[in-house]
């Protein structure tokens, strides 16, 4: 009873401590769980739904050399004013076309590796197919990425492409390694 009375007399102090503790450790974990741009690969996915946490954990099982972190975000994260620069984007075919039409310099042209299907635009290839609408199959579908609603098949293919501001694809300005390409291959190899 006395303890409770004492606590109530200093309730504001205890409450303030709880708030400070949550804010402080939240901030520290944000710092600890991040890495400089040169040490992380950022993936943006614009699908019906994604399990960003599980996908990041899965991709981090095979971290490329020199990379500490793989961050997976919903594409809307980019759209709400974040200044995070994506290395890899997974978008619908129509969205990729729109990006190339409106801002072609934002997408990195690539050479399609053997066994992959590319997205051609204006004579260059810009994306690698990750979801096939004809067969309704895609990398990591139903486990990490949901390309279609359950009651409605997806009519469009999805493509994986690289942002020109990436520093993890050899050939891009300021590239330090080819880690984004390695992560992309890992992403494409996820069970269908």
């Amino acid at each position: 009873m006395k303890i409770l009375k004492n606590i109530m007399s200093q309730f504001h102090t205890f409450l303030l401590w709880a708030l400070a503790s949550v804010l402080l450790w939240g901030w520290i974990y944000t710092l600890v769980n991040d890495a400089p741009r040169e040490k992380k690969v950022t993936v943006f996915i614009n699908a019906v739904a994604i399990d960003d946490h599980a996908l990041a954990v899965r991709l981090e099982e095979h971290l490329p050399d020199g990379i500490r972190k793989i961050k997976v975000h919903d594409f809307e994260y980019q759209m709400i004013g974040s200044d995070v620069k994506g290395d890899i984007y997974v978008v619908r075919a129509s969205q990729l076309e729109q990006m190339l039409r409106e801002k072609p310099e934002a997408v990195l042209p690539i050479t399609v590796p053997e066994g992959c299907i590319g997205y051609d635009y204006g004579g260059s290839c810009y994306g690698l197919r990750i979801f096939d609408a004809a067969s309704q199959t895609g990398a990591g579908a139903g486990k990490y990425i949901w390309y279609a609603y359950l009651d409605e098949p997806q009519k469009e293919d999805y493509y994986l492409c690289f942002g020109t501001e990436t520093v993890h694809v050899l050939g891009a300005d300021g590239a330090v390694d080819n880690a984004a390409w390695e992560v992309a291959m890992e992403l494409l190899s996820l069970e269908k």
Partner: protein
Amino acid sequence: MPGQIVSLYPPERLRQLKRKIKALRILLWLLAAAALTACVVLTCCANTANSSVMMLWTMGISTVAGWIVLYLAIFGVGEGKKELAHASHLVEGEQQAVTGTVLVDPCRMRLRKSISVRKVFVRTPEGEQSFLVNAARAEELRRAGERLTVYVSHGYVAAYEVCP
């Protein structure tokens, strides 16, 4: 015992209080260090797979340990220090003896940035005088009886003597 001056702050009690404050201080520093170490270890062990769970554990440990440390600091060390400062002040001060019928008020009040006290009324042939007594010692004074000589220092009762 009639004729014997009983101090409300005997030297042994003050020594005990000093020992208690020291022990509490050591305990709260140990607790704070242990909690901080646990939080740092959890933070260092965090990775993408477990960061949410680790963060919740860290926040929980930090919050609860912080509450315990705060409680000990405010109501253990803080209150102890106030009582010690108050007692030292009274023991060192000049004491004035007042003999009469003593009545200890049941209501306690907290002095700003100091200890809790209760009022003491002493009825003498000249009239009624009012003093204060440490609330933690008030029961001892009340149990001593009604007819007392109280020794007052800086307006606080520091000792008493049961009148024969």
